[in-house]
């Protein structure tokens, strides 16, 4: 018969596993949504849209188990911080799923619009953003501070690319009004990726809090280019 503390430890472990499962799930949504955009693959984009229900269920499941543990275990210290962190992280992950769906919908919207040239900056933004999400989850698993730094540093690069996308797309729209429809969507995609990167930074901030008890912002607030 396990002791109450052993039961609680097992519940905390299960919570971490659920968060990781959800993290990899939304990371897959992100990667597939950008792939669908690049390859103009409507079927894959629709598949990503459908996965959102699963992400929402995982989110509710994590929130429910956190609330149960708060009510029944009345956690303190590190245990409290792990559960508080899980409650925050799950919302960030759920939002990452939502933005991936937005990208997938854009892919569906642009499936019949020919690209004038291959996409360069957006796939690079997506690659950095995926690495950030993965890095934040790895930091959560390994409690590794270096991973947190890596996530924060990548965020700067994502922000720079977002500014570049804005500049390039607006210039092209001025020169060639026929590009407006496609480029306006691409600006939005860049914005979704930039927001996903911010959520990855949020996750990294929470991991740091979980480990140290210190809650502080790790990256500057996001800025919208042109605003």
């Amino acid at each position, binding site marked *: 018969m396990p002791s*109450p*503390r052993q039961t*609680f430890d097992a519940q905390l472990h299960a919570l971490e596993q659920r968060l990781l499962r959800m993290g990899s799930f939304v990371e897959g949504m992100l990667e597939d949504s950008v792939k669908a955009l690049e390859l103009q693959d409507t079927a894959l984009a629709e598949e990503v849209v459908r996965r959102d229900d699963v992400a929402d269920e995982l989110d509710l499941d994590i929130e429910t188990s956190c609330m149960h543990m708060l009510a029944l275990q*009345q*956690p*303190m*210290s*590190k*245990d*409290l*911080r792990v559960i508080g962190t899980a409650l925050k992280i799950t919302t960030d992950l759920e939002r990452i799923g939502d933005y991936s769906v937005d990208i997938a919908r854009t892919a569906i919207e642009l499936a019949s619009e020919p690209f004038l040239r291959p996409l360069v900056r957006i796939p690079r933004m997506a690659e950095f953003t995926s690495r950030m999400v993965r890095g934040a989850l790895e930091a959560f698993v390994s*409690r*590794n*501070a270096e991973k*947190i*730094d890596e996530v924060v540093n990548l965020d700067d690069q994502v922000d720079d690319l977002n500014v570049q996308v804005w500049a390039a797309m607006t210039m092209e729209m001025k020169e060639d009004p026929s590009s407006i429809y496609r480029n306006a969507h691409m600006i939005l995609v860049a914005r979704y990726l930039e927001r996903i990167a911010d959520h990855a930074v949020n996750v990294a901030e929470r991991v*740091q809090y979980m*480990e*140290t*008890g*210190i809650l*502080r912002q*790790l990256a500057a607030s996001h800025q919208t280019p042109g605003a």
Partner: protein
Amino acid sequence: MAEHGTFTPRPVVLLTPEETATFLVRDMNVFYGDNHALQHVTLNVPSRQITALIGPSGCGKSTFLRCLNRMNDTILGCRVTGELTLDTHAILGRAVDPVEVRKRVGMVFQRPNPFPMSVYDNVAYGPRRHGARNRGVLDRIVEETLRKSALWDEVKDKLRHSAFDLSGGQQQRLCIARALAVQPDVLLMDEPSSALDPISTFKIEELMLELKEHYTIVIVTHNMYQASRVADFTGFFLHGELIEYGPTVEIFERPIDPRTDDYVRGRFG
């Protein structure tokens, strides 16, 4: 994990400013014969705040509490060393009359222990012992004290009834009233609600929060959640040592010493 940015960790025993402290405790030790029950405790007890002392049974928290009103003097073979001041006056040593200390430092115990007399006489007991005889004066003290103890409305029509007719929670609030009737500055509470049901416990906690406007309160509790609900500062004792002392939220959210962390997370035993 490495820290990001600048963060100066607080000391494990955080000393609040001396000028706002009711008690200053410096290197205090308590021996029961050969047993070194309390070891080198140094802390400041802040004025008009609630300080909770937590720790497993036998950790020294009640021993510490009893030093604050010289109750350890009543234990044969008990020896206390170090310095202890109450509002800058030293209160340890034979030159200090423990009765005078106890007049300023009231105490409430785990089990409600009203005297076998009426509600009124329980409250009037202390003032009478200190010379109050005038009926009007005593009436006023009894009413004011019972009001302060959030008991007046419940007992005003049964002041002449035996204190034993009251419920457990009411009896405990009567004991608090009895302690307050001699106008102390400090109220010590040793597990004041461990024998009470949740509603009575809630009333005692509510009362503590009201009383701290006028009194310095030190409470020993086995109930960590009680400490987290009411205390401004919390000290964790283990094996006779003060392991960690600081703002309550820090002790329960991000304790520094791993032994505190283990205790508040229920990882002992």
